[in-house]
């Protein structure tokens, strides 16, 4: 047996709310890992909303056909695009496709991260609780073996995304089995811890 607990404390104008959501179930699945640092760069060419060239810092470590995520801030507004396909020529990385926000204007500073994929095995219908957290601004998606995205979640730095089967919020993943978790982070200064964990009512 395994347990999951969400403890919440809200404070506002002198009023405090404290509560706890607890579930006990049969199994868990997930990852607890360090995501490598992203590389700094500039969007040196903007072809369209989902195509461009990132002039990245030397040593970016990205290869042609890798899937990458691009993060930026433009005029104080953050944006990110994930699941883009990379084509590499030296430090110039052509990025194409993916999902998320439209690429920023040309010459905008970005960071680019080679997405990291971790194998898991569970069915979304079996979840009684799920949570994810990354130290840095990041992104995680739950995928089938194809891979096809079942659920994509943008993670604020240091903030937990979570769901519990209270019936008040739609189950985030249903149907097809989750075979892998793919994640990225925006930070270029170092690794970032990523935790993804699901509590399950059946072992896969």
């Amino acid at each position: 047996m395994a347990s999951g607990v969400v403890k919440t404390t809200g404070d506002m104008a002198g009023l405090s709310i404290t509560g706890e959501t607890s579930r006990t179930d049969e199994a868990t699945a997930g990852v607890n890992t360090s995501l490598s640092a992203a590389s700094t760069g500039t969007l040196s060419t903007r072809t369209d909303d989902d195509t461009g060239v990132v002039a990245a810092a030397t040593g970016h470590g990205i290869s042609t056909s890798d899937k990458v995520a691009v993060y930026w801030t433009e005029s104080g507004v953050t944006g990110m695009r994930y699941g883009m396909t990379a084509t590499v020529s030296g430090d110039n990385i052509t990025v194409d496709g993916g999902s998320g926000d439209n690429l920023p204007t040309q010459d905008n500073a970005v960071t680019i991260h080679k997405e990291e994929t971790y194998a898991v095995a569970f069915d979304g219908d079996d979840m009684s609780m799920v949570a994810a957290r990354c130290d840095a601004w990041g992104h995680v998606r739950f995928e089938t073996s194809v891979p096809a995205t079942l659920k994509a979640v943008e993670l604020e730095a240091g903030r937990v995304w979570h769901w519990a089967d209270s019936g008040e919020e739609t189950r985030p993943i249903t149907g097809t089995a989750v075979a892998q978790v793919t994640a990225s982070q925006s930070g270029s200064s170092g690794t970032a811890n990523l935790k993804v964990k699901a509590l399950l009512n059946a072992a896969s």
Partner: protein
Amino acid sequence: MGNINGTIVETVTIDGVEMTSVGTVTGDVGACCSYAIPAATSGTVTTWTDANTGVITASGHTITTGDKVDVYWMSGSTRERRVGMDATVSGSAVTVDGGQGDDLPDVDTVVTIAEVMQIECACHPANLKAWVMHLDVEGTVCTLDFDGAVDEQIELTANEPYQNIDGVHTNSFSATCGYLWVSVAGTTAGTFKSQFVGDAL
């Protein structure tokens, strides 16, 4: 603008893996409240007219004609409820009509009937930054627009906070919230607390 602050600390632990976040939410408007919610009264469905009309006989109730009431019962191990029903009272017999939720159960089903507490709210949950609600006993919260139409029906488990935090949860609210209807399912009174921070429309 942006002068209302709240702090939300969340710790999720699954199988020993702990994830903690401390979030400060800032918005243009905020509202918080704490109310005692009266206990429901035990009763029985003595007349079943149709799925949303019937008579509940409940000794000792304090419901008066014109009140809004919520009706709770168990279907096996599942809690069912019909909320926002109109009450017409004749002694211990309370005719209930309308509302929304599950179909009223059969004659002779044991139920509880709760007078709804209406709380003025006046917020814009479509622009919410964070909304945390808590009831220390099982119950229901409905959000209503200023015309009295129910937007969301939220079923609260005892001591499990409802939380809708921008960037973390899906915001399902679609209407301006003028009022809340709150009731408890059992025969023990409860305390309801709500904290809302949001941006102006």
